């Protein structure tokens, strides 16, 4: 292990100007502050939503599709439940599925990307073929088929979304690793006899992380949309209220035709706001991480 000490010091990995600028990007611009506060708000709802909900979101009453009133600030559903309470409680599914699926996706993508990019050769060719194939298979139909096959539950949703959305991350990581692998400091570490695992851990991974992180944030947004779509198609977790399932219930019970805008607009608006905020954070990050974008496009 003596080699490790020698290797650790000499050439500091060229630090991408990530951390510092990222902070200033997120907190220093109104876009960043706005996105962070929207995300923070929804995370708060995800944790405390069912505590602050005024009514039991699943309690049905005979007051069906009622207009907004003091008792029901956003009216009632086709089952007579309180839309506002459902909205508060529904945040949890979106946040949990969004983040968990993105985590799975980025772990998978990173592992595959690292392995392929670092080892090259046949490993890379095979992994690349698998990646290619996941990239071309249309994501939503694949998710639908898988979700239909398994009995829908939150875990299944997370797994299905995570398993189908990692290929993009794999691609990006692989490309980054390819360039890093040829860099002098990696070459030298290898020449000095460092083990692959060591090189990956100390040199490759740290230099890829910012990129992975930015990409993961964008996948959070994609996952939230995917969960909502699946729930809208009736493939969500039937025991949980989510914004997607609210839209499904509204649509399948004829709420739009009944003019029940109070039931139709809020869930979609929440999805849009959350995805909007998360995407913006993702872009701001990518912008910081990927210097090419930053130099040429000051708008972000």
């Amino acid at each position: 292990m003596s080699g490790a000490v020698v290797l650790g010091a000499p050439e500091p990995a060229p630090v991408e100007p990530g951390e510092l600028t990222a902070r200033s990007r997120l907190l220093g611009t109104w876009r960043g502050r706005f996105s962070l506060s929207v995300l923070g708000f929804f995370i708060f709802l995800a944790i405390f939503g069912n505590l602050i909900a005024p009514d039991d979101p699943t309690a049905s009453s005979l007051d069906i599709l009622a207009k907004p009133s003091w008792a029901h600030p956003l009216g009632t559903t086709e089952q007579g439940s309180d839309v506002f309470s459902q909205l508060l409680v529904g945040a949890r599914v979106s946040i949990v599925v969004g983040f968990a699926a993105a985590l799975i996706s980025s772990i998978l993508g990173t592992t595959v990307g690292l392995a392929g990019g670092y080892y090259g050769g046949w490993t890379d060719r095979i992994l690349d073929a698998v990646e290619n194939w996941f990239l071309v298979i249309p994501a939503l139909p694949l998710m639908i088929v898988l979700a239909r096959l398994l009995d829908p539950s939150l875990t299944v949703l997370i797994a299905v979304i995570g398993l189908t959305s990692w290929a993009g991350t794999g691609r990006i990581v692989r490309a980054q690793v390819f360039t890093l692998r040829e860099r002098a400091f990696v070459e030298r570490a290898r020449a000095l006899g460092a083990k692959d695992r060591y090189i990956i851990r100390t040199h490759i991974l740290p230099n890829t992380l910012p990129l992975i992180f930015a990409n993961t944030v964008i996948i959070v947004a994609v996952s939230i949309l995917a969960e909502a779509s699946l729930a809208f198609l009736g493939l969500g977790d039937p025991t949980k209220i989510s914004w997607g399932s609210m839209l499904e219930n509204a649509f399948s019970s004829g709420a739009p035709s009944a003019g029940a805008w109070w039931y139709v607009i809020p869930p979609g608006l929440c999805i849009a706001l959350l995805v909007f905020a998360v995407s913006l954070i993702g872009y701001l990050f990518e912008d910081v991480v990927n210097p090419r974008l930053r130099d040429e496009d000051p708008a972000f």
Partner: protein
Amino acid sequence: MTSRWLAAKTGAAVLTLVFVLIFNFFLFRVMGDPTTQLARLPNSSPEEIAKLRADYGIDKPITGQFADYIGDTLTLDLGISQRSRETVWDEIKSALPWTLLLVGTGTALATLIGAWMGVMAASRRGTKTDDGLLGFSLFTYASPEYWIGIILILIFAVAIPILPAGQQVDPGIEFSSFFAEALNVAEHMILPVAAMTLMLLGQYFLIMRSSMVDVMTEDFITVKRAIGLPRERVINRHAVPNALLPLVTLAAIQFGAVVGGAITIETIFSWPGLGQLTFDAINTKDFPVLQGTFLVFSIGVILANLLADILYFFLDPRVQAR
């Protein structure tokens, strides 16, 4: 050189296609026995179910089934729908043009409008217009397309009922001319196409905008302006065409996302395309149909990707030179 590059790309696409076929087969084998749905049907006996299993060939060993499957697929025999007893290929054939119409029009409009917005934003970088367009397109990108669709229904078919929001043409009418029918179809297309366009718009806008920004900083543009060409002219004549390149390929690459949108949008607007066919097949567990549409979607995406490569190859001389 050209042919070799093309051959390599095509080869890769074919390889992916083979992967898709194998995957498709096993995925749907795992999905279970399609006859279980009949168990709850009044008057179905075990013998009848056994007979049905033989009809679908699912009583054979798995290798035999696989050989059958590959052979059949290559001859466009995708099986028979369990519900309608029509061949899956017939069902796909009658649904495909409607999906192409919806997706084609939506993509074309999104490309045009997205490009136009992108140019506007890029040439007014940092202004209120830029900010507004950016916010708008990010928001439409973040909104679920079926929600946009429902809102459109709410506005144009419920609050102010001026547009049809179901099916592709008024049913049960004999039209006096082709033109009258086309007009009626066009009327029915407005809302679904609008939803599709809004769904895709954001991406095109963002790409066009950043592509424009890229191009504007390239040397030749700087030189053009340096030799005194007016700004408008430089933008329109030189920057826009070059910036359009990534947009065209994006149109092809985005096909996968479009397919997802087609499923939900067609469902909402009862649009009789592949998306609705898929949705109905999910609900009725019509596996042969589901397998068929899934295959068509996959092939579509593979072809679209190949097309993107080829387009890029011919449109961008920098690739050709390589």
